[in-house]
């Protein structure tokens, strides 16, 4: 155990994200490891798509390309969580999850935590930027957000 609890927004012990056995989301998680945000975009009709799927929902072309995008957006919704639904969160106190809309990526949305004071007032529509959160052992990365 590293003991560096402050290096990540939430304590260790929550479920760790891994790609499905068929590998559908593997490029996304590998991208986060390299501090790059990858989102699917159809090379034929340019439709953005997140989460990933094997087909473009608009034109039905298979295997949409993974495209790097700038990790910025605006808060679409939020919640402040008080009740620990996992033993790792017992005694942790409140934390904030946000749903972030990425207008420059076709309006796709992503869930993350809002960094900073967990009791802060959250404003729907506020601009946020992404912060890559790297976990060393086992290695995986998350995408968090902070108000700009």
């Amino acid at each position, binding site marked *: 155990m590293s003991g560096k609890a402050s290096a990540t927004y939430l304590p260790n012990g929550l*479920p760790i994200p891994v790609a*499905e056995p068929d590998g559908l989301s593997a490029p996304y998680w590998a991208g986060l490891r390299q501090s790059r945000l990858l989102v699917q975009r159809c090379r034929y009709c340019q439709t953005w798509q997140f989460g990933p799927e094997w087909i473009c929902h608009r034109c039905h072309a298979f295997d949409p390309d993974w495209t790097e995008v700038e990790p910025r957006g605006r808060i679409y919704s939020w919640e402040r969580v008080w009740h620990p639904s996992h033993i790792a969160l017992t005694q942790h106190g409140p934390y904030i999850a946000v749903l972030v809309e990425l207008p420059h990526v076709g309006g796709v949305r992503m*869930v993350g935590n809002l960094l900073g004071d967990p009791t802060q007032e959250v404003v729907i529509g506020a601009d946020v930027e992404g912060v890559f959160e790297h976990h060393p052992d086992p290695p995986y990365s*998350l995408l968090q957000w902070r108000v700009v």
Partner: protein
Amino acid sequence: MGPTDRTLRGRVAVVGIGETAYYRHGASPDAEFKLALKAILAACNDAGLDPRDIDGFASYSDDRSDASRLAAALGTRRLRAATMQWGGGGGGCCAAVANAAASIVAGLADCVVVFRSLAQGQYGRFGQTTGIDTISGEKAYLMPYGVLAPPQRFAMRVRRFMYEHGVRQEALRAIALASYHHAQANLRAVMHGKPLDPAKYDASRWIAEPFHLYDCCMENDGAAALVLVPEERANEFRHKPVYVLGAAVGSGYRTGAAPHNSPLYASASFETVASDLYRMASLGPSDVGVVQSYENFTGGVVMALAEHGFFKPEEANDFLTLENLIAPSGRLPLNTSGGNLAECYMHGFELVLEAVRQVRGASSNQAARSDVAMVIGGPMVTPVSNLLLGSGGTL
């Protein structure tokens, strides 16, 4: 046969209902499968029907009480229909009835039991997620951020709806108060004898804002069942038959786009399903006398009622008051058994049974208008489902 002939309206009837005692999670002395058997036998007894005459089973949410095991355990003479509705949550509580009804109308079966058996104390609580090391698929984009159990998975949807339409916390509170009010007259209710008032609600802890403790359903052990037969047999049994007037299942365009990417996000998923239901039943919201609306969380009920046309989202604060929501004479008596919040979280199937009781005139909180009773299943998930039941006089 033309398209207008393809309907469930008036074609099948509920002739028996039954449930076990309802328990707090972990408090059932009986195994989950035994609970299923008890509920089914109670429903058959209510109908005055030999359980060996059951020829089909229908359920939802991957119920563990398998149809073939039930048929073997009960010694039913033969099994002709066994349907499981895809999807989790209570979104299937009405769809299971629709699937059973469709089996009967199509001539596949003649006497179908629809049921849900659930012992969260034996198989794990929906509200706890400890014990998962790695996660893939939709939940991989949520759980590492502490969006783990249903309260966290649905709070942002409700928050967005409140933001878009100016809905206040008091609207959510009124739904909780109505359920608890009704539970005080219902001896089956787990929360019987435990009233709720506005001050107690306001002082209760947050689970995930905007949900207080009392905005969230319970976690319980129990089982509930009903028996469906074709309309030509409806009068062979003990009680006044309760007819299916309509049912609908599904969700709109890309509602299943995960994680949290459904185009119509601030929604309970009934945009298309509500209109399908009214069309099949040839009825509208003003014809409905009493509603049972699945409360995973009160905020989902607000959205579901609006999507069924009982009020516009902007009118939610005015419509959703305790006085308007209680039997016998509120504008729209809601969750008259106490429902998932205060009777029992029987995954919504207790709501279907309560709608039958309302049409029979046998509820402990009987609504003044109860010839047409609605059930709304599983807001905010996909697929969702809904159901309209009515007396013989409505056909």
